[in-house]
């Protein structure tokens, strides 16, 4: 098991290296000149040249990469072109709303998908199964932000149950926090639940057709016991995978959706940075998010090794 873990860790390091190169190169393909961006358009060519050499931009690309990656290891992602703050500070001040939305959305998705998926797998080809399948087809074709616009229109504007925009930090009370992130989280969660439902259903169907289920049934185990005692545990593995991968989907979804509700999170930061072509901030967000997801996936992989002896053996 330890060997399997180390081989995964080895692969991880290579992936991280490639990711860092891609993120580093983002600034270069932009053709953006950090010196020019910091000095503004009024700078003379001499000033720009002086700034370039003081920033070290006139050195070879390899040396610059080495310098940059060394900074990253020390938690230094550079300076924002637009704000006079470091990228790390900017990102951390915007992290909470986006992460809150993603986590609550994940919970919403799980609460919808697991019961629905199990129910429709237990009654294949029933009316309920048909309705669930239709729901997943529509859900998988609907982007979260489209559903969010609809929810905002109905529940925030017409019925005024929820605030239309803004955010209240968790530290200022759970109730208000939940009221502010409810709509973005529900819209993302419901849409994401479509994929998760489909996954749960087919994973359950797969397990329910296996021999040990037939054995349990002929032993006289009740249907409830078979589904929840035997099948669900085995069907959980693909679901766990999707929960891990789902965080990537949900955080990027939160980025898009929060712009509708004017939530001051990473999405708003990305939009502002894209408008101002503040590449270091974009690099920072992309790098942070990607490294987080790689880490989550690694944890999921390790969880597998612990949960499932079969995976342990094949690895």
């Amino acid at each position, binding site marked *: 098991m330890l060997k399997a873990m180390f081989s995964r860790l080895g692969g991880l390091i290579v992936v991280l290296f*490639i990711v860092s190169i891609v993120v580093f190169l*983002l600034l270069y393909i932009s053709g953006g000149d950090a010196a020019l961006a910091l000095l503004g358009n009024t700078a003379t060519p001499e000033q720009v040249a002086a700034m370039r050499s003081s920033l070290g931009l006139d050195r070879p690309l390899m040396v610059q990469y080495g310098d940059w990656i060394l900074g990253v290891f020390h938690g230094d992602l550079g300076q924002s072109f637009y704000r006079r703050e470091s990228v790390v500070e900017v990102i951390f001040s915007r992290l909470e709303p986006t992460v809150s939305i993603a986590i609550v959305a994940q919970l919403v998705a799980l609460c919808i998908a697991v019961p629905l998926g199990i129910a429709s797998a237990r009654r294949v080809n029933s009316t309920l199964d048909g309705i669930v399948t239709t729901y997943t087809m529509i859900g998988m074709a609907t982007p979260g932000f489209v559903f969010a*616009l609809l929810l905002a229109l109905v529940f925030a504007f017409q019925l005024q149950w929820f605030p239309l925009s803004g955010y209240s930090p968790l530290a200022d009370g759970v109730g208000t926090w939940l009221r502010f992130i409810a709509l973005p989280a529900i819209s993302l969660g419901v849409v994401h639940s479509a*994929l998760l439902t489909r996954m749960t259903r*087919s994973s359950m169907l797969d397990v329910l057709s296996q021999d040990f289920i037939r054995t349990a049934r002929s032993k006289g185990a009740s249907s409830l016991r078979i589904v929840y005692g035997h099948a669900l545990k085995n069907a959980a593995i693909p679901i766990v995978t999707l929960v891990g*991968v789902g965080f990537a*989907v949900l955080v990027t979804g939160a980025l898009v959706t929060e712009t509708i509700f004017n939530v001051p999170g990473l999405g708003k930061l990305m939009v502002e940075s*894209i408008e101002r072509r503040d590449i270091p901030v974009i690099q920072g967000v992309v790098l942070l998010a*990607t490294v987080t*997801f790689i880490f989550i996936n690694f944890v999921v992989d390790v969880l597998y090794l612990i949960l499932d002896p079969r995976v342990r053996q094949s690895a």
Partner: protein
Amino acid sequence: MTLKLNPASTPVEPRAQNRQLTFSYRFLRRPAFRVGATLAVLLLVLAVVIPPIVGYDPYSVDPSVRLSPPSFTHLYGTDDFGRDLFSRTNGGFQVSLMIGASVAISSAILGTLLGALAGYYRAVDAIIMRICDGLMAFPGILLAMALVASLGSSLVNVIIALVIVLTPGIARLIRSRVLAIKEELFIEAMRSQGASSLRILLRHILPNTLNVLLVQVAYIFADSIMVEAALSFLGAGVAPPTPSLGNILYDGKQVFLTSPWMVIFPSLMLIVMVMVVNFFGDAVREALDPKASRRRWTQRSKSVWLGRFSNV
């Protein structure tokens, strides 16, 4: 010619001749295909046949009718510049279709090329696959966003960004197919007959990867439509005044509380469009492998899931 063991039974057609036929037969009979095809015809009539009859220019601005609700003159109402929303939505449909098709075709070609090289020639395998792993580790939309931000927002750059994001998934899929087919007996037979590597790869291995490619291409088509909409919705996609479903929604975001038609019609168009493509993808998948289709869905590797961003 084989011996007829049982002359009384009706003659059976040779299998090989029948294979192509059964695939299309099965494909056309899938409920998913029928629903998809019906919706596709409706969309095409709505977005391609009717607009020239109605005859509005998606670019012509008329401030006197800014944000007017749906009516007989403007079926979907007008936008914040007084442009006819019906023709803008249909223009957006065409742009989305164009983006979906270009991304699907380019990443299929590029992905097949890289996947075949990696699967067939061990020497380049490690390099290509590690780069693909690295690119697939990014959350797709985020990488696309960053690429468009770096390259500058335009139609072509959106396509380039999407191809970079989506090609690694195809390359990995094709590689695994090539690796499997390479070990089959008929390939060894070809090799012992003296066929060249290139001939084996092009004539015998690649045609056998077409089926999995087809399914993946359909999903990539759907993904790129959704991601383009998300990018443009954030203002990092197709630049106005070119209509795209995403940038109509971006404009609509500012006014949707008072003029909900600005988001309702383009959203519906987007949802139905993605559904149609997904239906076709499902139909191909089921027709290729009716028994294993359900199984395959659960057994798709994590990497395939990473490549999918169904819910942006």
